[in-house]
């Protein structure tokens, strides 16, 4: 009993600290990557013995200290309580959403099966969507409580944008759910270990390429980053919903945004890129088609899976940062038109085509 509780607590702590630390690391990577893309050096004060790479360690400590020691400014005519509550509302959903994303297969250690996933809910992906839908409140409340016209504009833009893209995001995943026939993310990840025609891993990207594009676009819009950073839009409304935030509260908004990036990357990995699956790696080792098998101990397999999952997540975090520094910002009407007139009909079409194909597949005489 105590061991079980300990295992659950350890898993929760591990995932939480991984998301938070990755958020901090991404904050540094974003500065360095933007410099790399724009042919600058960037963040040059934080280096150890001249190695910019070691500056990461520095930045991870220096950043929070700097943020936390700054003055916490609350607008005199703003609302004290809600102004303080808003950053918590922004950070909380981003941190807890990762709980249902599996980072490895079931591990059997000393007659004890450990599911490498913090919470195994039978509604899995709906839980993530519900948390994503709650993350609007941080922006809206923060914007209103600041008593600032720019903030309010940012908040109104943010709430309209996030509601619009939530629908497209939810519908785009529908095809994946229909193919794998479950809402549980662990089941979805496991089903992607099957092989199509004996050689192609049944990853979501191969079965639902359109859904991947739609979902990725909607996910970037949900994290409110360029090209969808209308709620902040520095050149139009200063800093949008967090214009009146400083110090630790701004850090919470900042960390919340990066935690959302990590969660989005984890979700994309799980739904479309096999989650913790390594191609051809089964429970007892590699089974290469045409070549042969390579048996591995269970612990090595588990480590490989967790390592692969981490690498995939890091890749999609990097892709999102790359996007931000490569694209210009949309105009507001373009954002709305893209969401309602492009993504939503395409997602509906994708659901219909997938349904027809599944029925045709099931009634086909020859199944691969």
């Amino acid at each position, binding site marked *: 009993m105590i061991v079980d509780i300990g295992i659950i607590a350890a898993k929760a702590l591990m995932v939480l600290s991984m998301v938070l630390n990755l958020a901090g690391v991404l904050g540094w990577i974003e500065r360095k990557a933007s410099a790399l893309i724009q042919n600058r050096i960037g963040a040059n004060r934080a280096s150890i013995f001249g190695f910019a790479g070691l500056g990461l360690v520095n930045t991870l400590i220096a950043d929070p200290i700097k943020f936390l020691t700054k003055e916490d400014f609350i607008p005199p005519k703003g609302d004290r309580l809600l102004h303080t509550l808003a950053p918590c509302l922004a950070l909380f959903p981003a941190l807890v959403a990762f709980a249902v994303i599996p980072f490895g297969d079931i591990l059997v250690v000393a007659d004890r099966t450990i599911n490498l996933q913090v919470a195994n809910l039978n509604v899995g992906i709906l839980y993530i969507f519900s948390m994503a839908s709650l993350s609007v409140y941080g922006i809206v409340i923060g914007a209103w409580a600041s008593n600032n016209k720019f903030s309010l504009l940012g908040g*109104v833009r943010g709430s309209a944008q996030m509601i619009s893209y939530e629908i497209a995001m939810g519908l785009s995943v529908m095809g994946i759910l229909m193919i794998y026939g479950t809402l549980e993310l662990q089941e979805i990840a496991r089903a992607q270990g099957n092989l199509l025609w004996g050689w192609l891993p049944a990853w979501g990207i191969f079965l639902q390429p359109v859904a991947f594009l739609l979902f990725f676009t909607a996910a970037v819009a949900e994290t409110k980053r360029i090209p969808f950073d209308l709620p902040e839009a520095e050149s139009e409304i200063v800093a949008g919903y967090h214009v009146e935030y400083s110090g630790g509260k701004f850090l919470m908004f900042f960390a919340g945004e990066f935690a959302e990036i990590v969660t989005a990357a984890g979700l994309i990995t799980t739904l479309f890129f096999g989650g913790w699956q390594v191609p051809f790696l089964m429970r007892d080792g590699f089974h290469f088609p045409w070549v042969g098998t390579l048996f591995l101990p269970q612990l090595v397999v588990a480590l490989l899976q967790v390592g692969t999952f981490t690498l995939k997540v890091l890749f999609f975090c990097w892709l999102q940062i790359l996007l931000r520094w490569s694209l210009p910002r949309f105009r507001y009407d373009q954002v709305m038109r893209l969401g309602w007139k492009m993504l939503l009909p395409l997602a509906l079409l994708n659901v219909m085509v997938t349904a027809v194909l599944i029925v045709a597949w099931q009634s086909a005489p020859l199944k691969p």
Partner: protein
Amino acid sequence: MILFLILAGLSIVFSLLVVFQRNVIYSAMALVATLFLIAVLFLTLEAAMVGILQILVYAGAIMVLFLFVIMLLNPGLLEGRSIAWWIFGSLAAVLLLFVLVPFLSDSGRLLPGQAPAGGSFGSPESLAQSLFTDFVLPFEIASVLLLVAIIGAVVLAKREV
């Protein structure tokens, strides 16, 4: 049981705040908190699907639209109401009580100490199964109703252009 008492107490406190707050934004946020707490209550009753849908639909979508409208109109603090308004409100509350009391006294078998319904009850599969077999007609009627509402909203919005 203790968990239920805490959750129920908190949701009563927040729902009272919805009514008694002068500030509309505070009322809306208290309503969000109430809906969230009720969703957690569903979770403790092993009805994860209902709980999550409660958060997704009510707390996450409908209340966001409420807040959106409140922020656009920005009504500020509510003024005190007139005597006639108070009388009307009390009458409505008493009438609602007459509807609710028989219903609630009827539901004595849903006491919190009872063991939750086991098996696949409340799972997405069983929910979908009953929606698309036993209750397919009410389900379709509800979706037609929603469709009518959507078309109505579009027509109303178009008229002003």
